């Protein structure tokens, strides 16, 4: 099984606004960092989202969606918290609206399965509605592929 993750955020300004220019400039190098990271399998790219018409309409243009698939929890953890990505995360308040709602979720997918944005959003809704469980969880309330809390 592979580990899928989705996180969403609403920017403080449109993508072409000067307030988020630093963030936009970092997108490419940080995505490249993910692509080259050990254990990286796949991520949702612009090419995927353009073809997924329903995704844009369902969730709104101002919602940024990050979705990726990794071999293991440790691979994802190392990328998120043990690369230059950490410094970008630390600046998130400059660019993203502060939200109290659930904005990040993980779940297991069979090897080779590439989740759709709608699938990821459904997992996020599951986490928000029912709290962490085998089908939707976080680093903090992690579940192994067998469904047991880790």
């Amino acid at each position, binding site marked *: 099984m592979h580990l899928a993750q989705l996180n969403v955020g609403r920017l403080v300004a449109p993508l072409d606004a000067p307030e988020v220019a630093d963030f936009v400039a970092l997108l490419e190098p940080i995505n490249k960092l993910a692509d080259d990271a050990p254990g990286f399998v796949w991520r949702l790219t612009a090419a995927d989202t353009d073809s997924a018409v329903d995704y844009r309409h369902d969730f709104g243009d101002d919602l940024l969606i990050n979705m990726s698939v990794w071999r293991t929890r440790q691979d994802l953890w*190392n990328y*998120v*918290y*043990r690369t230059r990505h*950490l*410094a970008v995360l*630390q600046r998130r308040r400059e660019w993203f609206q502060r939200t109290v709602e659930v904005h990040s979720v993980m779940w297991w997918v069979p090897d080779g399965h590439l989740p759709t944005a709608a699938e990821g959003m459904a997992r996020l809704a599951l986490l928000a509605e029912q709290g962490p469980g085998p089908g939707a969880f976080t680093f*903090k309330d992690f579940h192994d592929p067998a469904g047991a809390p880790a």
Partner: protein
Amino acid sequence: MTDDLAAVAALHDPVRRALYDYVAAQGRAVGRNEAAQETGISRTLAAFHLDKLAEAGLLEVDFMRLTEARPGPGGGRPAKVYRRGSIARTVTLPHRDYEQLAALLADAVHDTAADERAVAAAGAAGERLHEPGHWLATLRERGYEPYADGARVRLRNCPFQQVAEAQPLLVCSMNLALCKGIAGPDATAELDPRPGACCVSFSKNKSR
């Protein structure tokens, strides 16, 4: 805690303590010959004490080829090597559990407005610890285990590791602020996270 106490008690022997300190300071696997040479004891005695430290869980054991395979019997055999164990050992008598308290506070504070105050508090604490020209010694005293890596100074140990695993965003931000404060104008602390290592490294400021 019984296991922790037994592990710590295993370090009472000064020879063992020297071996443990040597292996821990290398940040890599160390063979019996090297450990014996560096601590000035026989290979047999080093092997005995290294195995005692491994039994206590203070060192982890592995097998690897340390040198080019030599001709003859056993020449290419993997050697037993030791590296520091990853489990933290704590003994406080009577029992105290500040780690649980810190984890609960980190959970409560992270991703709220209060986390910026936590980072500011860490920065102020670092500044109070700063003594001009003394930053490396301060880092050493506080368990960071600094070491030179080319022009940079890196940290072998994260003193906040358990809580940092649970709340890396908050704890690494606080640690960076703390390190910046400790270094003051002597060095520049920067976020430089790597798998299995502390999130901060330093460049020395030449003018100082």
